[in-house]
């Protein structure tokens, strides 16, 4: 499914009032934020297309319009001006919206807050049952969704979702959305509030969904996660499209990102700060490994005294930090560094 935003503007002040006045007329009207400074425009003239199969990252500071944008993606809210189409069909039409709603899986922030059923099974089955599927199909979907998120249905299917740990609850909430077999998965801060290990698990899970051919839109505050996973990144500021492009294009201009309250991913930001100090770092987008490779090449080249300084550095390290020694940690660091590299390769 190709989801297109055509000059979409949205005002919380205008929304319901517009409904009463007749939406059609309102949508055809020109956006009037220039003339109505009091109206709070959450989105202003946003045009973009979510291509089938792509991984679109969405970044922006608090209040930039990210959540409003994704609520447009399954017709949960309708544009005040402009339109959103799915394969050309306008989401403002009731029939289109209800059809698209089962094809777009929206996972809100802290989705575990929306668990409600008595058992894990019933919670995951809620969506498919709502789609009026027969019980055999519902069962198949529940099983597949639980397997996808790495939960054992036989072990926890009959338990209350509220007895599970926070990370498991979130997986159940994910499974509930996946059981509807959406073509487009929209995730609002899917790893907020998780510890680093669970965060890495979840991101790997999301990468797997994408690898299975699902289109993914992910809102995140973590530029590292966005850089590692996204094909394209959309940056919103004050409800407008501030930037839209590959991670390399978007993160090339760290200064302007900072102006809209965002930063580049840590390796990219550090590379840019080293460039200012005179290091030559030619790549467009750096991750940890590529930055280490380029720096090592530069510092090793023409460094006859490398042995001497190495000994000096070793002495400087206190005895208590022995486990931080390079040899001991290399195998430990390798798998961690792997993911971004692979994502980089996929982008080509």
């Amino acid at each position: 499914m190709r989801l297109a935003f055509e000059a979409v503007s949205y005002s919380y002040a205008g929304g319901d009032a517009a409904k009463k006045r007749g939406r059609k007329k309102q949508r055809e009207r020109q956006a009037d934020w220039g003339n109505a400074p009091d109206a709070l425009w959450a989105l202003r003239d946003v045009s973009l297309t979510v291509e089938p199969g792509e991984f679109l990252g969405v970044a922006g500071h608090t209040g930039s319009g990210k959540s409003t944008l994704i609520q447009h993606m399954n017709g949960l809210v309708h544009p005040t001006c402009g339109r959103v189409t799915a394969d050309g069909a306008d989401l403002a039409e009731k029939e289109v919206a209800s059809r698209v709603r089962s094809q777009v899986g929206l996972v809100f922030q802290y989705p575990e807050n929306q668990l409600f059923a008595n058992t894990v099974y019933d919670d995951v089955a809620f969506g498919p049952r709502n789609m009026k599927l027969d019980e055999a199909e519902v069962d198949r979907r529940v099983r597949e969704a639980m397997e996808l998120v790495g939960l054992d249905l036989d072990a926890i299917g009959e338990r209350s979702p509220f007895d599970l740990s926070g990370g498991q609850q979130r997986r159940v909430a994910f499974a509930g959305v996946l059981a509807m077999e959406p073509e487009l998965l929209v995730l609002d801060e899917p790893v907020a509030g998780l510890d680093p290990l669970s965060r890495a698990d979840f991101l790997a899970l999301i990468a797997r969904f994408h690898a299975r051919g699902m289109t993914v839109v992910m809102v995140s505050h973590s530029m590292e996660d966005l850089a590692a996973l996204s094909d394209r990144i959309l940056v919103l500021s004050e409800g407008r499209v501030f930037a839209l492009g590959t991670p390399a294009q978007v993160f090339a201009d760290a200064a302007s990102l900072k102006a809209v309250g965002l930063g580049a991913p840590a390796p990219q930001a550090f590379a840019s700060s080293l460039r200012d100090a005179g290091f030559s770092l030619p790549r467009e987008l750096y991750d940890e490994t590529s930055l280490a490779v380029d720096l090592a090449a530069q510092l090793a080249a023409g460094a006859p005294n490398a042995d001497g300084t190495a000994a000096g550095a070793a002495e400087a390290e206190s005895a208590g930090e022995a486990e931080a020694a390079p040899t001991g940690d290399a195998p430990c660091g390798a798998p961690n560094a792997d993911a971004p590299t692979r994502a980089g390769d996929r982008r080509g």
Partner: protein
Amino acid sequence: MTNPIDAAPADDLFIDAADAGFTYDGEHFVFRHLNLTVPRGQFVCLLGGNGSGKSTLAKHINALLTPDEGAVRVFGCDTRDPESTYFIRSNAGLVFQNPDDQIVASLIENDVAFGPENLGIPNPELRERVTPALKEVGLQGFEEHETCALSGGQKQRVAIAGVLAMDPAILVLDEATAMLDPRGRAGLMRVVRDLHAAGMTVVMITHYMEEAACAERVVVLDGGEVRLDGTPHEVLTQARALRALSLEVPFACRLSLELQARGVPVATCITDDALKEELCALRSKQ
């Protein structure tokens, strides 16, 4: 009225958990035989994976929870002593993760005044508490704004102002930056650092290693036990131990290790600035 805390000796322990144990269900202990002390004026950061007991411990600091075994003393008072509860609660302020859970009033000044008003502070003095508290968090002039129209970062600052207006001696932040964007997080960290510089005892729970690097001391909890305890540099450079405790290693430290693995003789750093200095020094030796 002088605050009894001001009269206490300067080197006293503000938080003293001695062999403390706590269980929600009478069966599984969140922590047991926990020993941890925090002296007056320290800025300590608590790290740990989900379920490590950090938040449960934080709730012991202002007697929201009390230990089932051992004792937790705050300002020298046993938290289980009902006589002390009021004193502890009015002097140890807690800020939680979700600002929406903590805003009680529709106007900012009313929200910030809620705490001190509950302490029975009369109106003219109330204003003297609210105005500086808002100034402290960079929201002066916003007194009559509506709380619902604020961004997440601003709401969190209002929540902190509400705690500051109670004039606490300890500020406990339980993942208070988790829901903020990078700018909101940096702003909040600046506020916390300023408060600490002015003498506040700060206990901060976070998943962000850059924030832990700003603290004076870092304590890592796992399964209710203190696993690592030391200066940020001592703790955050222990990459293998941190990963085993499902924690992240700061970017500068990860890069230092990657460089060391490639034969570049840099020390293990925990901040970008320190690593940059190391690299520049290395290059100038060439």
